[in-house]
């Protein structure tokens, strides 16, 4: 019974959990209840991933209404992998949210933050779980609305402004996406993504389809912060509450990139469409620009959170480039990096959150010498930094290895130069942070800090190291996912 409904339970559980936590209010049980639900959820996603890898794509008709009339939930290898990533990171971070937020958010609002956090998790899981285009929009909005709330919850001027900017831009993105979905609905009369993939080839040459594709792509590109639509991301990552940023940076753009991959390869008949190849080439160019400009901006900034935010813009470029190659190897590389970067950036933002606790400052200067005082955070920061650079035996190296392999196979020599240049630039900005954090000349006394908040960092960094030492499981899952996505046998 549970096994049969596991697919929908993954989304339903957090959705039900959120109002219950609201009712539990400030009591301590609320946190443990949340942790319990999210842990069960994470285990479910692992089980589902194993199912998908052995049986193949899972389908679930909502309310027993068969597709394409009813809403269908469909879990493919890529979705299953991303669900594991989302649910695991949520479960690992949830227990520490209260401690991380304690300084910035008064206890009266902490439970509200927890509720928004659970809703965000539900929204992200929903985007991945559903097989219905309109449902994607709904979950996109659930996750976006809870993100706006989470950013603004700290009651700081900058955070409010960042949240408002994101609200405006995010709504424009959602509207674009909705217009695109509306256009294909007018053309085909269906919203089921698999059904769309069957019906759209008949109308692949119409102008409406081209315009729908453009609207959908731009709408998602805003949510995914693909350069030059990344401007909302920098203030959000710089001013949102510290504990929340780690989660946002790890997951929200990744899920949007997943949606991009699904629509480009699983819904629109890109190969038959006149603008298909042009769109892919534009995406490649934007990805290259993102890598170079993002890395350069990261070098120029001296606020650690801005450095990491611009680094994210660059890393999103790597993922977009892999996807836009539209080859099996390219999409595999993109999926691998989607997964790896979530853990890398999640742990890096966590580290910075802990280092800045007490001072609340994020300038490089104010972090000086803290690595010696908090060795566990320092080491995790090193692992994360090395991963960003792509030092061997970290997950970042695996990502880069497969991305460059894909580019060599596609004979995109100039793109390779750009990727390598951006990697070299990442050494500069990563080392800036490492050097400040381990600067012995400024040995400031640190107030005692709670060692338990190191647990999620250790776990996330361990994933990074494990993938670096043994990537075969991730790589074979990603290969399977990319084959499925591109419709290869």
């Amino acid at each position, binding site marked *: 019974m549970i096994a049969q409904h596991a697919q929908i339970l993954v989304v339903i559980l957090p959705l039900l959990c959120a109002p219950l936590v609201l009712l539990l209010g400030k009591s301590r049980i609320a946190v443990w209840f949340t942790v319990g639900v999210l842990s069960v959820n994470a285990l479910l996603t692992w089980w589902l991933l194993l199912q998908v890898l052995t049986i193949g794509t899972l389908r679930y008709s909502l309310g027993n209404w068969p597709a394409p009339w009813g809403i269908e939930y469909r879990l493919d290898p890529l979705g299953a992998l991303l669900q594991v990533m989302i649910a695991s990171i949520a479960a690992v971070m949830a227990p520490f949210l209260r401690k991380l937020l304690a300084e910035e958010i008064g206890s009266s609002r902490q439970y509200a933050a927890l509720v928004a956090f659970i809703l965000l998790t539900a929204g992200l899981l929903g985007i991945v779980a559903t097989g219905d285009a309109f449902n994607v929009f709904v979950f996109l909005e659930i996750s976006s609305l809870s993100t706006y709330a989470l950013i603004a919850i700290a009651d700081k001027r900058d955070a409010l402004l960042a949240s408002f900017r994101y609200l405006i831009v995010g709504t424009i993105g959602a509207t674009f996406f909705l217009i695109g979905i509306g256009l294909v609905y007018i053309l085909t009369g269906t919203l089921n993504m698999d059904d769309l993939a069957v019906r759209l080839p008949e109308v692949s040459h119409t102008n409406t389809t081209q315009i729908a594709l453009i609207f959908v792509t731009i709408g998602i590109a805003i949510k995914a912060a693909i350069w030059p639509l990344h401007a909302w991301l920098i203030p959000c990552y710089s001013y949102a509450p510290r504990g929340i940023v780690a989660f946002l940076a790890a997951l929200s753009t990744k899920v949007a990139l997943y949606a991009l991959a699904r629509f480009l390869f699983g819904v629109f008949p890109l190969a038959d469409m006149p603008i298909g190849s042009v769109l892919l080439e534009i995406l490649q160019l934007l990805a290259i620009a993102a890598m170079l400009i993002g890395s350069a901006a990261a070098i120029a900034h001296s606020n650690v959170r801005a450095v990491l935010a611009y680094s994210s813009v660059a890393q999103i470029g790597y993922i977009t480039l892999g996807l836009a190659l539209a080859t099996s190897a390219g999409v595999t590389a993109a999926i691998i990096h989607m997964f790896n970067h979530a853990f890398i950036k999640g742990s890096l933002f966590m580290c910075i959150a802990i280092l800045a606790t007490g001072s609340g400052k994020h300038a490089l200067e104010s972090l000086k010498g803290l690595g010696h005082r908090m060795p566990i955070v320092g080491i995790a920061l090193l692992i994360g930094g*090395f991963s960003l*650079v*792509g*030092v*061997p*035996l970290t997950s970042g*190296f*695996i990502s*880069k*290895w497969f991305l*460059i*392999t894909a580019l*060599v*196979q596609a004979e995109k020599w100039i793109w*390779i130069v750009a990727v*390598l*240049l951006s*990697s*070299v630039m990442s*050494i*500069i900005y990563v*080392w800036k942070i490492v*050097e400040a954090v381990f600067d*012995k*000349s400024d040995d400031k006394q640190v107030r005692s800090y709670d060692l338990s908040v190191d647990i999620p960092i250790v776990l996330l960094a361990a994933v990074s190291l494990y993938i*670096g*030492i*043994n*990537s*075969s499981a991730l*790589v*074979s899952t990603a290969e399977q996912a990319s084959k499925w996505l591109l419709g290869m046998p």
Partner: protein
Amino acid sequence: MDALSGLGLILSTPFIGASLMILVRRAPVLRDAVTMITSVSLFILVAMLPSNSDGAVFVLAEPISGLPISFGTEPFGKLFAFIASGLWIVTSIYSIGYLGQKTDPNKTRYFVCFALSLGSTMGIAFAANLFTLFIFYEALTLVTYPLVAHYGTPESRNGARKYLQILLGSSIALFVPGIIIVYLFAGTLDFQEGGVLNGKLDPAFTIPLLLMFLYGVAKSAVMPVHSWLPSAMVAPAPVSALLHAVAVVKAGVFTITKIIAFIFGWEMLASSPGANLPLYIAGFTVIAASVHALQQDNIKSMLAYSTIAQLSYVVMAASLFLPIGGLAAALHIAAHAVAKITLFFVAGAIYLKSGYTLISQLNGIGRNMPLTLLAFTIAAASMIGLPPTAGFFSKWFLLQAAFTTESYFTVGVITISTALNAAYFLPILYRAFFKAPNEDQKSFGEAPWPVLAALLFTAALSITFLAYGNAIMELEAPIFGSIFNKYD
């Protein structure tokens, strides 16, 4: 001892030693004892290791399926490991004397990083494929960073940053894509005699790919990716001695030689269009670096530029693309290692006793530190290539290889650079022994005994080359052939 279990022990020894040092960090005497025991046991293990594991490999992990981290032995790797581990013992003795007087809070970090550097060097020496070699190559960069930045002053941190950024940057920008290209074309990254790329790569791309490696492996300090080496001179003297005269820089030329011999293969390169290009680049580096050395007043900077020139000797030897060149490369790695480590030891000893760092301050110093300057003289003679020092023999074989291929460019470069070597070493000797001391010079004597013993020992190695040179040639014969084959 069986080769594979021996390899397991060799690779774990430095890491076990490093962990023990962290455990006993509160007891300095015990920590120094652990350093000594670790270095001696590593040396004994390397010496006992069979020189060839005949393709058998010790697999540690498999980060990417099809690309394991695996180790095996072959004569060239064994020679490199033997030199590095042997000189580590001497450097440890020297370090204990050198850092001895001062209370330095970072001493444990220093010895731990030293052990880790040697562990990485062993990984490079015994890597059974290019992927494994690359991993340890990067590890060596990272674990030597704290050693270069040891003093923690703004100056040393700037130097160390440059060191790290150039080494890491070049390897990521050129070494990694080079490896990927080799893997995609050859389908394997294993080191095999005769190379793995033969017939699988368009001849027109052969030399460009080799150039990617030549610049990607910046540890070999071919111009223009050499500037990290002078920057790294902010490190304490023993670090410059073992790492920037032996382990790190030799890891660079070792990697280049391995790639030339066992990834490309001699014949394939010799017949490729533009095959002389690497030779010209290395030859240019030899001359340009020697001219730079001539202009330096800082002793360690001068030695750094001299190292850059000597490294390119090895690259030139390998770039002749024939086995006898490989032999000359191996011999020069050994000869330069013992001579240059002595020179750095001497520079450190002088600094320790007098605080002098400039050549112009050395007037008459031979009267204060006669034994130290005697060692310097021997090592300088070896750098110039005077008989009966080690440098003479390695240069001899390099010339022999050059004549075999009728590469008169190489002969010319060696001749000019020998003159330049003499031009920057002999004036120092003249200053030290014949000029009157500066008026404000304090009186001081020889360095502490561990320092003096270490530098005299390595100087002795430089003049007793005849005693062990033959053993090296016999060791290397299975892969590089005998020097006398041609005339048999």
